[in-house]
């Protein structure tokens, strides 16, 4: 018995080691382009192309790409970062507020048409945005909202990202109803129950919503591309694209430097909220 189990654990250890090496190698291969971009952002263009350009250690590292790239796309990059920050903050706020209100009603309250509305909410989760995009554009144009952040932000205050509503409904269903009932006996209104009981207990789902709202809004390209045209209003992805279109072969170093800058907020969010993010992905299929 012992002999068998030792032999088996020996074999497992061996296969574990090979597994370990394979995983590490594949991981390195996948990460290599990212590391290479990071390293290239410190290289002069002559080192980014040509023989030996694959090296990860810059021959003569310098911050020139960053200082030149920062003003490369026209306005200082600070402007675009602030723009994106405005859009992302409002998006997070809108999603957290409007989705939690709707989720509370779906999870806790009785009302006419509850089933139909819930089904409609679920259906919109899978809806491709293109089928609403064209009409929304026409509507926002008629409202005079083109080239403002309103088309990017107002829908978030109207719980259009139904996925988060669904996420919160699931979460609220896990909160014991006895808490609501106790509060009601103490004279709490629905608003009181939402505000004082459910909202605090919902905070893990709110944080997940906030993180993914932020990342999605920050990376969003299509909607800003359609709505925003003034150079001083561009969000980060648009600014990067403008930079790409306007720069020649010589600007790759600067382009990489600014690309790295744009990736920092997402990577930082990931590092800080890693556990929450992974949990969110594994329980709900968020990306």
């Amino acid at each position: 018995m012992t002999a068998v189990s030792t032999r088996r654990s020996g074999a497992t250890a061996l296969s574990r080691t090979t597994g370990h090496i394979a995983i590490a190698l594949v991981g390195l291969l996948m990460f290599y382009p990212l590391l290479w971009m990071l390293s290239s952002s410190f290289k002069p263009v002559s080192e980014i192309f040509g023989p030996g350009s694959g090296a990860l250690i810059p021959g003569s590292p310098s911050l020139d790409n960053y200082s030149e790239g920062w003003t490369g796309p026209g306005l200082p990059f600070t402007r675009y970062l602030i723009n994106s920050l405005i859009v992302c903050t409002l998006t997070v706020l809108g999603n957290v507020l409007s989705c939690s209100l709707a989720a509370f009603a779906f999870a806790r309250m009785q009302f006419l048409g509850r089933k139909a509305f819930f089904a409609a909410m679920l259906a919109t989760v899978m809806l491709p945005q293109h089928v609403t995009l064209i009409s929304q554009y026409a509507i926002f144009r008629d409202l005079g909202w083109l080239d403002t952040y309103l088309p990017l932000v107002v829908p978030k205050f109207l719980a259009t990202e139904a996925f988060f509503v669904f996420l919160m409904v699931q979460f609220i269903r896990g909160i014991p109803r006895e808490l609501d009932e106790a509060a009601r006996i103490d004279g709490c209104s629905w608003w009181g129950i939402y505000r004082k009981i459910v909202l605090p207990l919902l905070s893990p789902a709110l944080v997940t919503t906030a993180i993914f709202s932020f990342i999605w809004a920050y990376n969003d390209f299509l909607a800003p591309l359609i709505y925003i045209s003034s150079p001083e209003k561009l969000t980060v992805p648009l600014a990067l694209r403008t930079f790409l279109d306007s720069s020649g072969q010589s600007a790759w170093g600067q382009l990489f430097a600014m690309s790295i800058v744009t990736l920092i907020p997402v990577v930082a969010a990931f590092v800080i909220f890693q556990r929450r993010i992974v949990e969110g992905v594994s329980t709900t299929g968020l990306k």
Partner: protein
Amino acid sequence: MTAELPFRSRLRASLPAYAFLSPWLVGLFGLTLGPMLLTLYYSFTDYSLLAAPEWLGLDNYTRLAGDPRYLDSLVVTGTYVLFSVPFELIAALTVAMVLNRGMRGLTFYRAIYYVPSLLGGSVAIAILWRQIFGSDGLVNQVLAIFGYEGSGWISSPDTALSTLIILRIWQFGAPMVIFLAGLRQIPAELLEAAAIDGAGKVRRFLAITLPLLTPIVFFNLVLQIIGAFQAFTPAFIVSGGTGGPSDSTLFYTLYLYQRAFGSFEMGYAAAMAWVLLLIIAAFTAANFMMSRRWVFYSDEGKR
């Protein structure tokens, strides 16, 4: 209970709930259902945003069927979905299986593999892809070390789409994380019992792990297909908005964008949008129907 109350008082009793739902209701009717129907209406018209829509009947749809660029975009998108989704899921499951064997550093590796999923849709990564698969880009520099002279992957119509497929497969971390969570749900006793009965690794995987994992495979499949059909940013950035070379990266959404916001043929683009909706709905429905044959829910019958 409530069903016996007259409609009016039930409506009155519903008012507080509607108050909570009001932002969502405005969004549902004003930004989702309303615009959906409006898009449907536009799809039967000639609409340039400058003048009122002009009724065309089914013209836009019949034009679609004879538009070579549109048919190209269907083929391009179909190829993209067909090749990226299965490979992405296979990579995700394989790595998840390896990681799931009680490996030390699991959290670290899971994070490393997941990060590309977070970044992959960004303009920055698309820019990186444009460089590394360019004619004098990183890939060819590395190939040169082995004495192979690569072409311009992005500038050749034969290979441009493959670089975008690779970019999607590169993001297998998200389905992998979902697989890992699913693998953890599989009872270890089952696998141990099978091992004692002499089932080898492959047998245990095929007879136990995979069947128990089918709901997760299904979930990932539906999610990834829906996502892949709507991919836009990588094709837009890598091809400079054109879908080139020779329309080889003209994704469905990219062509829709060109028609809608390049030449403001809103009616035509609206028809494209509705066809896309129907395609995605059909794939999702087909997935659900076929899932009855191969997806196994272990808690069936328990309730």
